């Protein structure tokens, strides 16, 4: 018999209750349990960063966390970054403007990682940004557009504050 648990978590501001098999990763639960397919499962061993989501505001690998471990916690996925009316976040806008994505596979992990990173490091150097995404693999862009986007957002945030 499969080992299952009843869990409850808030995802992108909305409360969800489900019965999950305990071996299910958080990433698989988000995709298959909640239909939030914006989170991409890549390597499934913590190397590629595509599955990164925020748990209680901190960026983590959703392939290296069990869904049952997120019981009672707050999860933000890429679907939760835009405004309710669909207006993209400043970082999402900047990705669009600077060609920070091509195929889009790494994008959810890049956006969630950088959202948490820029919140904690509002005035990063280019090197800081490169280190922040060193655990997120992109095979299309060569990273330049992604770095430009992050630095652009940081600059705008500085001006705004």
């Amino acid at each position, binding site marked *: 018999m499969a080992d299952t648990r009843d869990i409850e978590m808030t995802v992108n501001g909305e409360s969800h209750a489900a019965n999950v098999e305990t071996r299910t990763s958080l990433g698989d639960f988000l995709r298959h349990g909640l239909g939030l397919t914006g989170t991409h499962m890549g390597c499934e061993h913590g190397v590629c960063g595509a599955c990164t989501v925020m748990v209680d505001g901190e960026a*983590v*690998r959703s392939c290296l966390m069990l869904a049952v471990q997120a019981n009672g916690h707050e999860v933000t996925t890429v679907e939760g970054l835009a405004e309710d009316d669909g207006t993209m976040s400043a970082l999402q806008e900047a990705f669009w403007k600077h060609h920070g994505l091509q195929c889009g596979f790494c994008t959810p992990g890049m956006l969630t990682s950088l959202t948490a990173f820029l919140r904690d490091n509002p005035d990063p150097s280019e090197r800081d940004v490169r280190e922040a995404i060193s*655990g997120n693999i992109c095979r299309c862009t060569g990273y330049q557009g992604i770095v430009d986007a992050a630095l652009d957002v940081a600059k705008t945030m500085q001006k705004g504050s």
Partner: protein
Amino acid sequence: MKPAPFTYHDPTTADEAVALLATHEDAKILAGGQSLMPMLNMRFVVPDDVIDLNRIDGIAGIRDAGESIEIGAMTRQRDLMRDDVIATKAPIIPAALHWVGHFQTRNRGTIGGSLCHLDPAAELPCLMALYDAELTVQGPDGARKIPFAEWPLAYMIPSIGPDELLTGVSVPHWGGNTGHGFVEFSRRHGDFAIVAAAALLTVDAGKITRAAISIGGADVRPIRLTEAETALVGATPDAGTFKAAAEIARGIEAMSDAYVSSAYRQRLAATLVERALAAAASNLNGSA
């Protein structure tokens, strides 16, 4: 891939976790999950039971105990990097943690998980060797303390019983006019270290009064360069002294693998020890 089925346990006390270990023969302890989860996903390990420590209160946190810093086993690597006590009394810890994985993995990864996983290339075991840290494990008969020197038994095998749980680490505070250096070489940042070197130096009236050097990644367990440490005491902290001490690192036992020969690791060790010592001498500031 996905983990094979297991039975999940999430105890809320250390006692409860120890009791579970006693009654479940093929159980794995889940701390931060940044090593165990990949191994479960790839089915390198297929345990009957997984005992998750994340809901246990009281085995995470950092406490300044004057002569030492007491660190709970479930303290996240992120929290070690953000903590004021660590920053002032053991700044080599956050310096080394910059080399551990990526910020997303450090958000989950714990000090206890790293010490029990005991990867030869891991930074935290290298630091605990440097400090002669003392580990506390809890078993069915109560707690016992283990000096780090006795912790690694063999490749990725710590000196802990199948029914015991690592609950905390005590890191002695050096004090005095002390500096620290941590350097590492890997092909890409965030990869496993090919070799890492850590050094602490205390200098009084222009002479080295105390020294510790630890090398990670070279052998199955961190290597303390005691011969060099002894040679450093009483010497002047200058480039010549450091070069001579680092030469001793060339004679260490070093592993060889498909990518890196033992001779290369020995050369790296000498270079990195010299750099770590120079770094330590450059930030003497009364804390380490």
